[in-house]
């Protein structure tokens, strides 16, 4: 059982401001059901002084996700939008008397939902409508900006911390390199600005990069000579067969998946429908990867590509 502080327990068992807010003036939605948590934050803003007069939340998630959402509403009610935007995920965690490290992403989700709700109120296009490619971690729908903010706000210096705070890299692991680059770049900038001890800054290629739980789960063997040398055409045929078998399950979830390209042991697929909305849940990619490896008799990596790529 997690060691939740009394305040986390209190905000979970007796959440304040749960439920729909009729006539909300700003709504921020982050996360997805596939990722295990999702938060919809609704705020009512007085146009006179841009003060938040009411806030409510709906959350799908664990105890600390619900507590963090509720805490967020309590923190921001009565604040002006500018004041509210100054709070960080750390303020949410502090308000709750701390969160277990593995649960920090709950506070980050609250912080991101607040930014989204304010942007929505102000009529800005929330940057969550990612430019192609800006989405770094497809499994959990995490973009570069979110990683940068989490790294800066919390002085993160390891990949494990980034996974705890944003969930990025926590599933298929294909985003590890990209996330490392952002962490390294952000740490370097923080050192230059005098915000971080250079000795602590992250350097890519140093420490283990894939979270430990990921490594033991991976059903894929490290590259090794394959006994069955298939031609590319044979491979494609086998892959199409596997996708055909998996299609009914995907369609059950309202999605679909199509083969785009094969390069040695890398299989590019395009996900559509619900599979995209749920930011390409780990479940799907891992499932496909496992079946393909089985059928092809060699380790493969399934890489989701976005439309047009």
């Amino acid at each position, binding site marked *: *059982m*997690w060691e939740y502080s009394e305040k986390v327990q209190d905000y*979970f*068992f007796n*959440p304040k401001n*749960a*439920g729909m807010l009729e006539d909300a003036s700003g709504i921020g*939605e982050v996360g997805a*059901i*596939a990722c*295990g*948590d*999702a*938060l*919809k934050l609704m705020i009512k803003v007085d146009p006179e002084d841009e003060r938040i007069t009411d806030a409510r*939340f*709906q*959350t*799908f*998630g*664990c*105890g600390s*996700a*619900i507590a963090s959402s509720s805490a967020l509403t309590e923190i921001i009610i009565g604040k002006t939008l500018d004041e509210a935007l100054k709070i960080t995920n750390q303020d949410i965690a502090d308000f709750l008397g701390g969160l277990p490290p*593995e*649960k920090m992403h709950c506070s980050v989700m609250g912080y991101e939902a607040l930014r989204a709700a304010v942007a929505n109120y102000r009529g800005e296009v929330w940057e969550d409508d990612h430019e192609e490619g800006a989405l770094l971690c497809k499994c*959990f729908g995490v973009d570069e900006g979110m990683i940068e903010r989490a790294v800066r706000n919390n002085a993160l210096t390891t990949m494990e911390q980034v*996974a705890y705070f944003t*969930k990025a890299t*926590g*599933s298929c692991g294909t985003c590890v390199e990209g996330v490392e680059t952002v962490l390294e770049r952000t740490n370097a900038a923080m050192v230059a600005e005098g915000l971080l001890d250079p000795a602590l800054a992250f350097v890519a290629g140093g420490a283990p990069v894939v979270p430990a*739980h990921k*490594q*033991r*789960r*991976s*059903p894929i*063997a*490290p590259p*090794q000579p394959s006994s069955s040398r298939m031609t590319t055409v044979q491979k494609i045929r086998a892959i199409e067969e596997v996708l055909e078998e*998996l299609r009914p*399950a995907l369609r*059950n*979830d*309202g999605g679909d998946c199509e083969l785009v390209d094969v390069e040695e042991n890398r299989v590019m697929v395009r996900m559509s429908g*619900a599979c995209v909305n*749920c930011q390409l*849940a*780990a*479940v799907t990619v*891992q*499932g496909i990867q*496992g*079946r393909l490896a*089985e059928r092809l008799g060699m380790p493969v990596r399934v890489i989701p590509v976005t439309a047009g790529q």
Partner: protein
Amino acid sequence: MKAVYLDNNATTRVDPAAVAAMLPFFTEQFGNASSMHAFGSDVGAALRKGRQQLQALLGAAFDHEIVFTGGGTESDNTAILSALETQGGRNEIVTTAVEHPAVLALCAWLEKSRGTRVHYIGVDARGRLDIEAYRHALSPRTAIASVMWANNETGTLFPVAMLAELAHEAGALFHTDAVQAVGKIPMNLKDTAIDMLSLSGHKFHGPKGIGALYVRRGVRLRPLIRGGHQERGRRAGTENAPGIIGLGVAAELAKEHIEEENTRVRALRDRLEQGLLQRIGNAFVAGDTENRLPNTSNVAFEFIEGEAILLLLNKAGIAASSGSACTSGSLEPSHVLRAMNVPYTAAHGAIRFSFSRENTDADVDHVLEVMPAIIARLREMSPFWDGKNAVQSGFAPTYA
């Protein structure tokens, strides 16, 4: 409020009779079975009895087919590592995608450190093994097939007797992780082709940290732990006498109660499951309801998350468990539910209730009384639920 314990697949209460039998072996009968004096010989006789009690539960042909170990995990590791050494030239493993980490983590390590080829056989939406894929994966390179008898999360039973025969046709050894099956369903190993079987005491009202590996007579075993000659050189180290004696008593009690497990306990499980499905919409059972342990029910509740359910259940005095990501500290839901392609809308909200002979009708009543309100309360807070209905449910329940 009386606590309701429905997490017996995690561990069970040690039966008081087993505790009573163990106690003298901490005090007066503290001897070492290997000693050449009276202190030791009493213990030796007690260990023999424990071995025979376990033999009877398993329906094994000989008592020396039982090797006591430090639990299910050690037994699994011993079986698989031994096969890789004794099956000269064969270096592949066939297992399933839904095994316990005691097998999966070992296999992942073997892949990484030794380049061992491991075939992970998948399951369908009900958790049933893909037998064709299993057959296909077996080859003259297969050292061992290791397939669990009963799944710890869903209770789904695999047809291990038949799978053992298929493995033998390919010249491979067959091992089964029966940690969840032993003591819950009748077995008669001497009538099967199973070569090795793992079990663990604490899953059937025996003590923790004691288990056994059944090794069919004639099957070669390379010990995992080397040292003294205990267990005929197959598992070194002074015997855990109290543990073995407790395990023996637990085995005898399990054998006595196996009928009850499959009638009264099964009926409790079924009443809970049916009651939940009647009272709560957008919920379904995960697992193969036609081939399942009598004590296990895994119910997935859509649009809410398992840890939140467990916290509220715990507050109501009910202990259960969940395959949700949040409870395990990992970021993904259970590998078993993922292998079954359970939709994400439900995978995060799957709750496992696991019974034992100690549960009563009152336990079921209590859960049925509090569960609807817990689910309703969390769904009211969920953005995927509009108060009465799913905001959008694309899920066609093929599990029912």
